């Protein structure tokens, strides 16, 4: 009799503990192991590495595609990221703007294709690589403003937090799970509010949805991201 009861209590305790633990374990840290999305075929196989990749010191002229990139800022092309909810694909105009002056690669198949589109005045039908469900309202502007401008972090690091190290890829490919738990894991962390060299901000009180910044152990003002359902779902 008693044994029976003790046993059942033990079982319940075990369940509570294990589920609680596993739930905790389900929370991934900010920088996660990559969770690769499918490789996606694009109309033009755009080489991110060539554009955003680091320069090759031994090759100042930067002639050889295989050796290095141009270190172009992400937001030079994805210019809407700091202005709107979507980062946006640059208008064809922009690609041509540079490439009409780069004779060296003018005859390569990709660039030929590019110019075909341009002459036909048809937008390139790029495929979405990071496509969130329609009930999720992710806003690029806020994240860029928050981490690039206000906290003065390098652009590629900030973008990379969600998009992975794009400068090493050719065609971009999803690197992170982008599942809700993954977003939350970051929103629940304390982030430094403002860093040296960062854009000065007004009254801190109103910066983070209804959670006033607090001082962390080191005496630096830190704050969490918004956590209302209706911040992202409406």
């Amino acid at each position, binding site marked *: 009799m008693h044994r029976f009861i003790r046993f059942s209590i033990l079982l319940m305790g075990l369940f509570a503990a294990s589920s609680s633990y596993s739930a905790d374990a389900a929370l991934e840290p900010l920088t996660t192991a990559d969770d690769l999305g499918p490789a996606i075929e694009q109309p033009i196989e755009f080489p991110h590495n060539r554009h955003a990749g680091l320069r090759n010191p031994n090759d100042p002229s930067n002639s050889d595609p295989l050796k290095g990139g141009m270190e172009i800022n992400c937001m030079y092309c994805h210019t809407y990221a700091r202005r709107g909810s979507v980062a946006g694909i640059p208008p064809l105009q922009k690609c041509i703007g540079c490439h009409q002056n780069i004779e060296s690669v003018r005859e390569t198949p990709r660039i030929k294709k590019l110019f075909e589109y341009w002459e036909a005045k048809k937008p390139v039908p790029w495929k979405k690589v990071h496509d969130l469900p329609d009930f999720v309202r992710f806003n690029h*502007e806020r994240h860029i403003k928050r981490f690039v401008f206000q906290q003065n972090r390098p652009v590629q690091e900030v973008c990379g937090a969600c998009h992975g190290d794009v400068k090493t890829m050719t065609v971009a490919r999803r690197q992170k799970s982008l599942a809700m738990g993954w977003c939350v894991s970051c929103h629940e962390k304390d982030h430094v509010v403002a860093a040296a060299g960062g854009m000065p901000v007004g009254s801190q009180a109103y910066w983070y949805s209804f959670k006033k910044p607090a001082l962390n152990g080191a005496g630096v003002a830190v704050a969490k991201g918004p956590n209302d359902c209706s911040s992202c779902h*409406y």
Partner: protein
Amino acid sequence: MSVSNLLENWAEFRHTHPVNDVPHDPYKWAMSIDLDACTGCNACSVACYAENNIPVVGRDKFQHGQVMHWMRIERYWPEDGRDFPDQGATFLPMMCQQCEAAPCETVCPVGATNHTADGLNSQAYNRCVGSRYCSANCPFKVRYFNWYDYPTTENVWPAEMTQQLNPDITLRSKGVMEKCTFCVQRIRAGERAVKNEGRILRDGEVQTACQQVCPSGAITFGNLVDPESKVHQKWKAQRVELNADEQEKDKEEGGTDLRGYRILEELRPYPSVMYMERVRESAI
């Protein structure tokens, strides 16, 4: 989220109407509707359809009471038993009252509807399982359920009309509950914009679709905790308290010349919408 985490955040997760030591800050969205100005023209209702991707259900479904109008205009006749309603009718725009202690929130099994810190009664469509308990427990019956998969229903949004849909809002599919959100998409956009400037929204920077369109300006929407805001001043002038369940108006002494009241206040849902009585001329 572990049990420990759950316990930590429970209060926040279950944020209900503020007790005096924890007031809303910096926002508490509220409304004031002047029935004396409202002409019942239905412009607000149409604006709501346009802004919030509300499906037009058609004759048969309307007949079955499956209409989706988040904002409905109710028409009440004077009950004085005369032959003619010779004092006209009274029109009442009725939408989700964004109650501070919302009866719908406590009963939702999955917490799909819960209270945001800025005093909205939010509805996470993708969390909803469609138990419809919230609607069952709503005193105002202002929650609307997607009885069909309207986006794919014939003649609701023919191909051409899909282009009109507002991309800022989720299109609700079969089996989820929906309701007036105080145009949360506009509020959030506004908040984002001013966050970049490190300030809070000023009065009038965010308008709900219904307020924006109302030809007679009967609807006032704004931030109740901002003393500058119209809505704050109106509530103040009518001496309506957000956290009270009986207002000056209902008390014997004073308050007799006030017009502000909240509907079904005696049930203590603490609605965020104040109505102002329609006035009728006594001299004629």
